[in-house]
């Protein structure tokens, strides 16, 4: 017992803040990934929803939606990719509120660790999960008839845009997760936001089919901007300006929401 009980004999390190932020982020990310891997039902649930949407729009509704010049599935899949990562971002809120409830977040806040790492480790792990789900959806898309028309590099670029958007959106959900100590509440609060983002957009149908006021709303939000950049990357056509607009949205969201999340985190000790 003596070696365990005797205080102050363990050698602790005093790294600089940047190195500490890096190693702590790695450790926290690893912990979140491990935790995720051991709850496969969570991954399963995050797959079911986009899979159902593909089936629904491909076979049930798709026949009624006519997009001139291209098969609906090729129009649909970029929207599904965007929707997939958007709903994946909810996982950030759910994951953090789980840690709030278990007291783990409070413990982290009493450790001599990087403050940034707790949030970065969460969002990086969610990024990894998003990537897995996204790749699964790509496979599923090809299985039900989706084809790319603008080459593999453009398609990989499209996936990169999707992942960046999902990552930026994760940070938007950090504040929600920190505020709620109940994962179910975090989920319930996030879903309506997601529905607005996904359905008031051009993810599933062209904006031109919507009433004028909705076109205005849907035409000026980040998910529409993302889908607008994905379609030419998948279907062909001029891309540069759309890609830049989407990058600007995602970059702007990242800056704003990281700042808000850190401020929210700092104020937890009030």
């Amino acid at each position: 017992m003596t070696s365990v009980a005797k205080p102050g004999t363990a050698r602790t390190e005093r790294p600089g803040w940047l190195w500490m932020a890096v190693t702590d982020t790695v450790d926290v990310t690893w912990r979140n990934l491990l935790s995720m891997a051991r709850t496969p039902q969570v991954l399963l649930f995050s797959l079911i929803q986009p899979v159902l949407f593909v089936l629904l729009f491909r076979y049930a509704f798709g026949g009624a939606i006519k997009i001139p010049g291209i098969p609906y599935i090729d129009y649909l899949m970029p929207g599904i990719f965007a929707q997939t990562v958007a709903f994946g971002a909810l996982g950030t809120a759910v994951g953090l509120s789980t840690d709030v409830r278990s007291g783990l977040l409070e413990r982290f806040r009493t450790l001599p660790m990087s403050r940034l790492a707790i949030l970065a480790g969460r969002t990086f792990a969610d990024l990894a999960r998003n990537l897995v789900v996204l790749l699964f959806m790509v496979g599923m898309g090809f299985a039900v008839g989706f084809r790319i028309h603008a080459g593999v590099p453009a398609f990989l670029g499209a996936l990169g845009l999707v992942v960046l958007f999902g990552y930026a959106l994760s940070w938007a959900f950090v504040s929600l997760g920190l505020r709620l100590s109940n994962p179910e509440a975090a989920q319930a609060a996030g879903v309506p936001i997601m529905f607005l983002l996904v359905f008031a957009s051009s993810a599933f149908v062209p904006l031109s089919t919507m009433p004028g006021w909705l076109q205005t709303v849907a035409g000026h939000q980040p998910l529409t901007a993302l889908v607008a950049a994905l379609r030419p990357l998948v279907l062909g056509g001029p891309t540069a300006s759309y890609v830049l607009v989407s990058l600007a949205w995602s970059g702007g969201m990242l800056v704003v929401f990281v700042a808000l999340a850190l401020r929210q985190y700092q104020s937890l000790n009030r």
Partner: protein
Amino acid sequence: MADNPVIVARGLQKKYGSTVALDGLSFDVPAGSVTGLLGPNGSGKTTTVAIFSTSLRPQGGEATVCGFDVVSQAAEVRRQIGFAGQFAAVDPNLTGRENLRLIGRLSRLSRPTARQRCDELLEVFGLTAAAGRTVRTYSGGMRRRLDIAAALVHQPPVLFLDEPTTGLDPESRRQVWQMVGDLVRGGSTMLLTTQYLEEADALADQVVIIDRGRLIEQGTPHALRQRVGTAVVRLTFGDENSAVKAERMLAGSSPERHGATLQIPGAEGSSAVVRVIRALDGGPDPVAVEIREPTLDDVFLSLTSKALIGKSAGGAT
């Protein structure tokens, strides 16, 4: 007051909205000793511990650990302390070993040191056999032990434990007590909160009783017991009616009634029994008569009821 207090609270203030959690709380914990922070629910115990463990900022007053201010030198304070909150704060999806190593790494241990410390702690806390299982499969007592082990992983000289045995079965509680005793013999300084007076009695060198965020009383468990008197006479009646009747007949000795039992504090030894029985002559007969040492429960009840009636609760140390 001790010469070299390690944990110092000076006039701590904290409000949540309009609810006052701490109202000018001051106390010291001398080096190498255990202080039990005692009080009913909502008295400010958890808030106090949260302030010392740097997860909450006081709105007024000053709190220091090893001379470091918990607000302006929070990073240094975090290196000195181990903290175990009210709920076992571990990841249920990681194994016991993974949890400990994570906390070890985040407490700035090198990878090999963290590995070695975790193995030691798992051994001491009787978790070696379960170390490779996810915490989800642990009993409440095992989780609690792991949680306290996590607070010790970087061998901090100062420990804060918030209700370390709440919700544990008697056997697990005894194990936690044993661990706390070992830690203190090893030289740790500790502040632990509890609702169990028995626990403070068993573990603490000093008891700080608080109510509504203010200090009510401070002293050794022994000194506090002395204040109530040397014995408590406890009468049990066959039914509540008889107890109520007896309560009236003994009104002069300030009895306290719980259901069918009466407790008469402040009495001196066995002569008290004779006096009480005489006073009950012609009244209901108790089915059991007991004399016992006063516990801190008795102290607590007498002190808080006094404090609630009196305007000034005697906040000065």
